[in-house]
């Protein structure tokens, strides 16, 4: 069984709106519904659990029902950060999931997730035990302590940007979350950082530049633009899950272009 675990516990402090960002409506539809639709429409996903911000559970159920998201089976309380939200949902599945079931953890505020990304993420987890959707970095990154100035540059070929979805075997990810609590690790935004701290081997699956995380008002503009291009029929898509429309592998061994 493959279960999508949607993180929707955030309050949206960065967007400075009263409505949490995952519930902000774009073209008459809350962002989280775009996200849920991607999992609803994916044939490899059997059920959906959402870790939802307090006070919005009924709203979520209402919108989901209106949008025909019948795979949504559980809504649990979100936590104070990504780690707590994921943990709440994983604990709620203890009597439901088997060790070998696959859990696909995904941010509610990444609505541009595609069928290909989900497919590859699940496939990687089935094969290797984990699948972290990731992309190569197009920009130089520089380390900084204070955010005002930087010193060491890191070669962009040595790094991958890790997004969600992230898929794991249920038994392993549940163990990791319990173990992290025991060891006092409580501030991980994403499960991969916690798994890494616990010494787990992690594998990348194919992500996309388009799979943006909506955290600011600017990002909402970018999402609108991306959503418009998604509907642009002239943009021919290749069938292979790991190729973008330029035919460039979005994941694989990084190489120097010059």
């Amino acid at each position, binding site marked *: 069984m493959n279960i999508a675990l949607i993180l929707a516990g955030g309050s949206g402090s960065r967007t400075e709106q009263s409505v949490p960002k995952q519930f902000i409506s774009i073209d008459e539809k809350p962002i989280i519904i775009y996200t849920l639709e991607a999992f609803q429409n994916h044939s490899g996903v059997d059920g959906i659990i959402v870790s939802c911000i307090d006070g919005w559970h009924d709203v979520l159920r209402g919108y989901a029902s209106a949008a025909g998201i019948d795979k949504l089976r559980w809504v649990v309380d979100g936590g104070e950060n990504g780690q707590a939200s994921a943990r709440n949902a994983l604990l709620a599945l203890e009597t439901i999931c088997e060790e070998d079931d696959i859990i696909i953890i995904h941010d509610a505020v990444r609505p541009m997730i595609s069928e290909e990304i989900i497919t590859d993420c699940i496939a990687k987890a089935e094969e290797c035990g984990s699948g972290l959707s990731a992309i190569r970095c197009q920009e130089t990154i*520089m380390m900084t302590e204070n955010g005002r*100035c*930087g010193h060491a540059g890191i070669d962009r070929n040595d790094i991958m*940007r890790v997004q969600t979805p992230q898929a794991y075997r249920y038994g392993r990810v549940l163990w990791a979350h319990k173990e992290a609590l025991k060891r006092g690790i409580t501030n991980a935004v994403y499960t991969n950082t916690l798994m890494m701290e616990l010494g787990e081997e992690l*594998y*990348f699956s194919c992500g996309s530049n388009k799979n943006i995380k909506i955290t600011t008002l600017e990002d909402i503009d970018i999402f609108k633009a991306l959503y418009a291009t998604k509907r642009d029929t002239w943009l021919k898509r290749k069938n292979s899950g790991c190729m973008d429309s330029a035919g460039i592998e979005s994941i694989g061994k990084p190489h120097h272009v010059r």
Partner: protein
Amino acid sequence: MNIAVILAAGADPTFRMDIPKQFVNVYNRPVIVYTMETFQQHPEIDAIMVACLKGWESMVEAYAKQFDITKLEWVIQGGGFGQETSKRAVDRLAEECDGGDIIILHDAIRPLVSHNVISDSIDTCKRKGMGIAAVTSMDNVMMTDDGVTGKLSISRHAFRRIQTPQTYFLGELKKAHEEALEKGIRNENDTNNMISRLGRNVYFSKGSDLNLKINTVEDVAMFKALYAMKNGDI
């Protein structure tokens, strides 16, 4: 004087098209024209130089005339690496300009740069000696040797993603280029990397996620949509 240097020397094979991405047409004009227009319209910019891929200079000059880029004063040939292109621009400008003049390096393939981002880069340079547009990442980052497995996580708060514009004082940047050559630092893709390899701090100015870098055909589609939205068409 504030001089914008548009970096247009790249011939990136990952784009896999016959036309280099800075010259690809979007709504019937090359991407670089949008970039030049932004600097043309910016009140703090006095002159524009284009550091161009060999063989495409005439095209740049023709389109600049067509679209009234009156600030364009120099079209020079860029180099194989970002560092070399930056050095050629600096050497050429040093012949005619003052060491205290300000030089704003900007990728031709970032046509959506806003006036605000340019102004903040110039302003930061005046205060700190340089202004490098940077953004906080929303994704976390993992180090990898093979692109298949991750080996180390870096918190997204511990780094910034570096963009352009990158603004420097002309004289200072010229000195940095000379020092880099003396120390055998060559073939850096970005000027900021050369500066940090000299052991200096790099000062950040305001970047933007909208300051998209066009690297793939997918990015072209996104640029079109963002541009249409900016103009109220979406």
